[in-house]
């Protein structure tokens, strides 16, 4: 697999990262090096091996479905970039 400049631009879009042409080219060279390092993995035979996500192989705990947190809107919105009447403000989405 070889990473193209177009892949880099597409990934930047998916990750919501704005990138100039120059930045994309620099990123392309560095990511290609990193993927060179990662490629070593592909030669390993892992048939029959179960993927591992937690060392103790524990499963997600369930809890009772009840409200445990009170309303802290004012506290949380005090650190927001822009709020009005208890709402978070963003650029208009719907015309």
């Amino acid at each position, binding site marked *: 697999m070889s990473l193209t400049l177009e892949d880099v631009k597409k990934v930047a879009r998916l990750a919501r990262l704005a990138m100039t042409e120059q930045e994309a080219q620099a990123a392309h060279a560095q990511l290609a090096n990193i993927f060179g390092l990662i490629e070593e*993995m*592909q030669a390993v035979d*892992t048939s029959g091996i179960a993927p591992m996500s*937690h060392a103790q192989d524990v499963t997600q*705990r369930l809890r009772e479905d009840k409200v445990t947190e009170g309303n802290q809107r004012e506290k949380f919105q005090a*650190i927001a*970039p822009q709020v009005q009447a208890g709402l978070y403000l963003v*650029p208009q989405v719907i015309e």
Partner: protein
Amino acid sequence: MLNSSLLQLGAALRARKISSVELTQLYLDRIATLNPELNAYITVNPDMSLAQARTADERITQGDASPLAGIPIAQKDIFCAQGWRTTCGSRMLHNFVSPYDAHVVSQFNSAGAVNLGKTNMDEFAMGSSNETSHFGAVKNPWNRDAVPGGSSGGTAAAVAARLCAAATGTDTGGSIRQPAALCGISGLKPTYGVVSRYGMIAFASSLDQAGPMARSAEDMALLLNAMAGFDERDSTSLQREKEDYARELNKPLNGLRIGLPREFFATGLSADVAQAVDAAITEYKKLGASVVDISLPNSRLSVPVYYVLAPAEASSNLSRFDGVRYGYRAPEYGDLADMYEKSRSQGFGAEVKRRIMIGTYVLSHGYYDAYYLQAQKIRRLIAQDFTEAFQQCDVIMGPTSPTTAFNLGEKGDDPVQMYLSDIYTIAVNLAGLPGMSIPCGFGNNNMPVGLQIIGNYFDEARMLNVAHRYQLATDWHVRTPSGI
């Protein structure tokens, strides 16, 4: 006072030889003098620290015997602390004042400890030199031209320069152990799931773990007693009985079997580090231990596996930073997508963006099986190597880092070179095992060398015992940088 152990400090506080306010002020004065050059702290807030110290003094007067009551402890700036600016080393959170406490922070608060400030770190814990911090690089107290290691570089430098009694760190791929090694202090990453990550800003959730960084194993046992324990607010926190991590500290080491992985002593390890580690092993033999030759054949794959898993999880975790509810928002933007893109591009630094890009790519349509799933499978092979090794030995030892501290700017623009500095630590995170680094001598240019001690799952008490007996027999851990 600066070189007293936490137990000695606790005793001095309870005997009223010193008050918590005086002790806190002593450290605040040192920070005011030394931090402008070392840059170990991002935020100090004398008013808040001294208020906590006054409360601690009242508790002590009323007979509170908590071992940490009144002791000034610094928090890595990845831990949310209510009312404290919590930046995670990023412009993205440069103005974020946390509305709540991380579990670790509230544990220290209830133990009566004083929060001395927030230590510098690589941005979002992504780095091995502390050079990716938005707030500037940290300098190594042993040589101001050298890096302190990362990502908990501010904590390591603060402990080494006696700018706190002890501090916290986090370790995703070596971020406690590598800076501990490079700064000549002790650091412990517990078994995954032992310390709650609630309020600890997430990097790679299947690997992240918090732990103590201090001047000795004895101090770390005391700190881990406060930090560890089940917390239902972290879904990966393990439900286990509370244990006393200091309970085995003094046990003799007769009969201890030390596994030496061949792969950790092969090409790539610099001669000065190898020499110091070999000398430490010789010392352990004198203490009654024997050595066993072991192999961790898949550990060579740990760097590639890590650079799939960690960026993948980071790209997901960091998607929450969008400039809407908290943190950085670009000053000028057009529509909503433009606001997201500009806020994230301006708010994140180069290394963070690089890892988000890697992670987004390996998780994108058509690549998941080849990368993320394959990495998770090899992760199991790496973990199985350790399981087999622990059938022949009680602990595993080797170098923490292939070299002593490198110079600021030395690894320059090549991320791959930087990634390889964590070659001996990453496998431990992938396996979810506990790992530790303790000072074991000095290499070229008189820079500290760390000995890595890896234990079996939940074997922290034994690892602390193994480290403590060594620290009773040697004095590497009490050496201080000149001028400190």
